[in-house]
């Protein structure tokens, strides 16, 4: 059977991305990012329990350029996933689901995640 002439329903590549689409996929991406962050957390705990020599290696990796980029990325992933997770909990109560409300809360989440990440590193430094 020849399917080539049949019209296709519009999909991701057709739409101009609304901000709610970006926050939706970012929630999943930052969630996977936090799964990686969990590995780093366990690495920190386990290497500390393994003694000073092993811990020194962990510190060396985190002090490298790649380690710093990883940590900044993980901190952003945490704050985004936290803020958007709270947005999901509000949705679970049936509130904020109108198109305009969801668009507004998407921007709140983006701003909050950036401000919180900046505040985190400002307090840390």
């Amino acid at each position, binding site marked *: 059977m020849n399917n080539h002439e049949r019209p296709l329903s519009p999909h991701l590549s057709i739409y101009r991305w609304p901000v709610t689409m970006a926050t939706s996929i970012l929630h*999943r991406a930052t*969630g*996977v990012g*936090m*799964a990686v962050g*969990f*590995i780093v*957390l*366990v690495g*920190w*705990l*386990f290497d*500390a*329990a*393994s003694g*000073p020599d092993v*811990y*020194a290696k962990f*510190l060396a990796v*985190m002090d490298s350029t790649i380690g710093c980029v990883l940590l900044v990325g993980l*901190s952003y992933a*945490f*704050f985004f996933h*936290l803020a958007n*997770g*709270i947005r*999901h*909990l509000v949705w*679970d109560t049936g509130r904020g689901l109108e198109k305009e409300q969801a668009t507004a809360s998407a921007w709140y989440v983006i701003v909050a995640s950036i401000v919180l990440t900046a505040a*985190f*590193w400002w*307090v*840390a430094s």
Partner: protein
Amino acid sequence: MSLRSPLGRVLGLGTAKDGTSHWWGQRVSGIALAVLGLWFAWCLATMSGFSYAEAVAFISRPVNALLLLLLSVTMAYHSYLGVQVVIEDYVHSHGLKTASLLLSRYAHIVLAAAAVFAILKLGIGA
């Protein structure tokens, strides 16, 4: 009129056979992680340093050890639920999907066990 049997309606498990337990578990662990995660982020940001001595001193304080235990176990559970959905959405081959889900489950259990062991060792032993 509903075509569901009275038994099916009472059990409320739906076509996936596990009802709302996955959804509910993700919410319960998510709320806990919002609190535990903010506590841990605050600790990291205000820690004097990350030398071996400072890290061990932080982890072995009883209050910190307890909260780190809760954080690690809750995070393993929440992460497992999330990664499971990602695998189910994107891995379509039945064999690869089953293998990925198994691997993810074992990996999360190993990570949780490693975290619990490390915290207890530092909190009780060191």
